[in-house]
């Protein structure tokens, strides 16, 4: 029963990590660089969700949808300022790295200036914060996290594999020049992908804000998403999902057995060992670079 409880907690934490990893890996799959600004988008949307819920007294679904839309727009804006020109001038990968990490720090500091470095917490949305089910305690936030992550992941999968936009995104991720020749509007699709990734980032940001408390360095949680997406194989959509779940489970079990402070060290060591054995990730394939 105890292990079942841990399993449940692990899966609900893992679903948030998977959400972060998906937003991160979507950008990786089309532009082939690690988007460090994803954490910044998460923080900004978490704070905006807090403003919506606390100051404007919105209810939960309304707040989530609105902050997701705002997060998507911010992500588009980041794309426009940081990467649009680089993409047009065929800048090297290094420039993307610096640009994205700078954008991340910029967003984080803008939040720190506006809201100061205090800790905030979301108002309570639900009357009961947890309930018992056959010996297992289920926190309502955890359950919400699990359900909404599952819904957003299914919507994402539907968009990616069943719609025209999804086909274009996947074509772009295979070969941007060929996609351009096939008449795909590359700028539009890149902006669209950033929007989707921003929406995912905003949802995960709001949940992280509800689960922990709000502070400007919340965006460092994007590191978990990055680790999850490497575990699953960088740039692989379903891999990010498995990687997130695996990381969530591993963390919950480690926290239980070795304590929460030292857990990052253990996760890092396990992660390095995993990379030594299987560097391409769970479901990734290495595409050898061509000259």
């Amino acid at each position, binding site marked *: 029963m105890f292990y079942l409880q841990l399993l449940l907690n692990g899966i609900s934490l893992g679903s948030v990590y998977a959400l972060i990893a998906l937003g991160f890996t979507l950008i990786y799959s089309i532009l082939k660089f690690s988007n460090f600004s994803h954490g910044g988008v998460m923080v900004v949307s978490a704070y905006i969700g807090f403003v919506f819920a606390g100051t404007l007294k919105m209810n939960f679904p309304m707040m989530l949808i609105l902050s997701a839309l705002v997060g998507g727009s911010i992500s588009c804006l980041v794309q426009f*300022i940081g990467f649009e020109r680089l993409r047009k001038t065929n800048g090297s990968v*290094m420039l993307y790295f610096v*640009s994205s990490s700078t954008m991340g720090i910029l967003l984080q*500091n803008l939040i720190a200036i506006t809201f100061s470095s205090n800790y905030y917490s979301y108002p309570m949305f639900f009357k009961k914060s947890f309930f018992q089910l056959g010996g297992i305690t289920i926190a309502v936030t955890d359950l919400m996290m699990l359900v909404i992550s599952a819904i957003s992941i299914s919507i994402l999968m539907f968009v990616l594999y069943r719609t025209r936009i999804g086909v274009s995104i996947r074509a772009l991720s295979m070969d941007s020049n060929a996609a351009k020749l096939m008449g795909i509007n590359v700028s539009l699709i890149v902006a669209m992908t950033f929007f989707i990734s921003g929406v995912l980032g905003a949802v995960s940001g709001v949940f992280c804000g509800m689960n922990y408390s709000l502070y400007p360095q919340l965006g*460092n949680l994007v590191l978990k998403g990055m680790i999850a997406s490497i575990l699953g194989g960088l740039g692989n959509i379903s891999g990010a999902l498995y990687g997130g779940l695996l990381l969530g489970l591993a963390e919950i079990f480690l926290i239980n057995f070795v304590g929460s402070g030292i857990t990052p060290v253990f996760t890092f060591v396990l992660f390095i060992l995993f990379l030594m054995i299987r560097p391409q990730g769970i479901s990734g394939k290495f595409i050898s670079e061509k000259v």
Partner: protein
Amino acid sequence: MDFYMTLFTSICVNLVAILSMFMLIGLTGIFSMGQAAFMCVGAYATGLVAVNFDIPMVFGLLIAVLVGMLFAFVVGMPVIKLRTDYVALITLGFGEAVVALLNNTSNITGGSMGINGIPQKLTAGIAAFILIAVLYVVINFKNSKYGRQCIAIKNDQISAASMGIDVNRIKLMTFVIAGGITALSGGMLAYLTTYVEPMAYGSSRSIDWISVVFIGGINSLTGALVSGAIFGILPEALRFADALRIVAQCVIVILVINFMPNGVFGGYEITDLFKLCYKKISSFVSKKKVKEG
């Protein structure tokens, strides 16, 4: 030490770290997001030794370098042969892991309180001397066989490999040397500030160094040094608006990356100026001789 001397010394310490970052990004194209963790490791190694044993500063710094190189080797070994993204993300993870480890081993490292009471031995003269020595090493490294191999790797890894360069070995070597230099700057910092604490070495510090190198120009050592000095003085000048300073720096970085992708200095070094002057003078002198003759 008075204010200006301390400022000068801390800029020297920072420049040593920026030189190591230049070796990684500017020469080899390794993107290390957690380089500040090596500084942290060096600072703790020096701090622990200096507090527990009464040894001269040289040995304290030497231990920092060795420990830094050891850590760089352990982290770099499995990682360096993977793509740039993996190296960036894993070094980032390493930085977080180091901070977590230091926070939780309070019986040895003092936990989040850090280590206090390190003797203050670093004077401005010694710091400047170390900076010049490291600069000498880096310049020679850049002009040596290894440095040129590094530049080849940065520009195109596959063609470098096809020219017979052992890519993984050279990259690992650069990573280890750079780790040692960063740890050296950490040791210097420990001797300067007399205390070390884990929270000051997060990823934002590494990103700060990266942006300094990029503003100066990733191919130019002079550029890295000049922008490092300017961005070292700036926080003191703009002390009243610390958060705004970071915003201003970010905006400068984004402008530079978008409109001057090679940085302010491009590929030029200060020695190019001397060479140019020498050429002008010598051609002027020879013309004069021709006229006289």
